[in-house]
């Protein structure tokens, strides 16, 4: 502000040329942003597919297909929000599916044994956050590889889920617990509520708070962040615990919705969420990405799958298409990086 003022007063540079330049670069920057590209892509996708078939958007009754699709996606955004924080912070977590299933089964077992609902829920969160803490501790303090560490804890959590269920998934839960997944206050179903509450919170944390700034710094250059006094290990451990807590919440909400906690309720959610985030601009190297981007990436993947079903594409091709989209996103990223040749 003061610099602008000075240059105007001194008449050193004609201010109009600089502002026109910055306006043009602003436009270019907007169009260069992954979020903007994805938003346009998503809208174009809806327009094109709804021309091909009415069943995608509004037939046969209202927006039924879209509504079902959004509820499914809302469940995944519970995990997406903290997963973006973790990815931006330069880390990676494969244990989510295991934690979702483990928490669902453990909470379910406690409930059918008559444990009060709040205690069952708190126990579920404790079990989930324990896995998150182990992930974070191993990766930071013991300098273990995040990929292998979380693969290990995934198997452990999945094993606990299978063992605790003992072949018969706990089912038939108290009404109050079921309403955590099946309720619809103000006509909006619970999964959508969780998304409405968690996504803005995650956006705020990542974009506005000091913790968010430290996540970006840690993911961008961990050693530099450490040298400037950022508590990088704490950033990583907290992020892992947040992912695990969200996975725990998802596990309980699935159990509540299905009125049954199968040890293999989710299978592949973890990778879908990560793929959505990466399509949305989270770089696996860390330091880049936004919740908005992740959300739009996940939406694109969800719509692609849904449209494939509505259009009658064979399930084999559906998964091929997803793979191709992911490769294109990662390839575009690598190309952009090489062109910039950042150091």
């Amino acid at each position: 502000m003061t610099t602008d003022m000075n240059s105007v007063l001194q008449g050193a540079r004609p201010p109009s040329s600089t502002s026109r330049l910055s306006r043009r670069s602003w436009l270019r920057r907007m169009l260069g942003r992954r979020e903007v590209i994805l938003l346009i892509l998503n809208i174009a996708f809806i327009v094109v597919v709804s021309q091909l078939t009415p069943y995608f958007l509004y037939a046969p009754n209202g927006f039924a297909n879209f509504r079902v699709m959004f509820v499914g996606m809302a469940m995944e955004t519970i995990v997406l929000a903290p997963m973006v924080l973790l990815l931006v912070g330069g880390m990676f977590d494969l244990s989510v599916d295991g934690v979702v299933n483990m928490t669902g089964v453990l909470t379910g077992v406690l409930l059918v044994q008559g444990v009060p609902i709040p205690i069952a829920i708190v126990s579920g969160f404790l079990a989930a956050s324990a896995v998150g803490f182990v992930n974070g501790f191993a990766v930071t303090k013991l300098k273990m590889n995040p990929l292998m560490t979380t693969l290990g804890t995934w198997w452990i959590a999945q094993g606990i889920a299978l063992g605790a269920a003992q072949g018969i998934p706990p089912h038939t839960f108290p009404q109050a617990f079921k309403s955590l997944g099946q309720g619809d206050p103000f006509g909006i179903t619970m999964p959508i509520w969780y998304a409405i509450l968690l996504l803005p919170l995650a956006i705020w944390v990542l974009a506005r708070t000091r913790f968010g700034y430290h996540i970006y710094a840690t993911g961008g250059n961990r050693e530099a962040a450490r040298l400037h006094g950022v508590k990088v290990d704490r950033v990583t451990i907290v992020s892992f615990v947040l992912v695990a807590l969200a996975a725990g919440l998802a596990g309980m909400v699935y159990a509540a919705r299905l009125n049954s906690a199968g040890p293999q309720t989710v299978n592949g959610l973890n990778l879908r969420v990560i793929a959505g985030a990466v399509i949305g601009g989270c770089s696996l190297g860390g330091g880049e990405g936004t919740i908005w981007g992740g959300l739009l990436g996940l939406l694109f993947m969800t719509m692609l799958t849904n449209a494939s079903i509505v259009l009658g594409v064979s399930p084999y091709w559906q998964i091929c298409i997803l793979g191709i989209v992911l490769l294109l996103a990662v390839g575009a990223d690598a190309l952009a990086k090489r062109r910039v040749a950042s150091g």
Partner: protein
Amino acid sequence: MASSFAPDVSPPEYSLEPLLSLKGVSKFYGALRALSQIDFTIQPGEIQALVGDNGAGKSTLVKIISGAHTADEGEIFFKGKPVTIRSPEDSIALGIATVYQDLALVGTRDVAHNLFIGREPTRWGMVDRGKMVAEAHALIDLLNVDIPSVDAQVGKLSGGQRQAIAIGRAVHEGRSILLLDEPTAALGVKESHQMLSLIETLRDKQKAIVIVSHNLLHVFRIADRITVLRGGQLVGSRRKTDTTADEIIRLITGADLL
């Protein structure tokens, strides 16, 4: 010929207590002894140059003071009181700011954030972006460097611009000591001289500046005292007025070139 120089420090005419002193500090990287039994002092108000050949241990010494590495042996005193520097936070808390040889910038973040990493100003629990940008502008004006915009991604700037940002950060942060590890290495001739002028303007009775440089011209221009490391040992520390470039070169190489 291979005469070993006894640590030969000019008698301090300084009446002031040292700002920082290291006593018998050693650092090992595995079996490699990067620093051995260093006695090193930083006086308030001085600009001290740290010179020595590649691998002499200059950056290691800087990193021990900045908390990036911890000393394996020895003691550190700040204003006469023993202190432990185990992490960058400890050093920053003493008012020590460091420009590392590799600059330690986050390339994916913009200029404004890089100037404030680790001490982002907050308001109502949120980062005060407006304040950060205003202070970033003020700093860039002070440094008189050509940075396209405080929103520019640091990874896309030139080496000189990046160096200016790293130094701007340290200038803003350093309340007691500024450690500059080769601050002019990436700069052109004109920019180097601007940077040296800037460092001279930062001379302050309360603060001290330690500058690592291979350029003896620069060293003789701005330093009050020149300290030489060779093979991990402190082989001499001279007031500029008491020495010559020839003597410093002899100390650096350990050989009589004349």
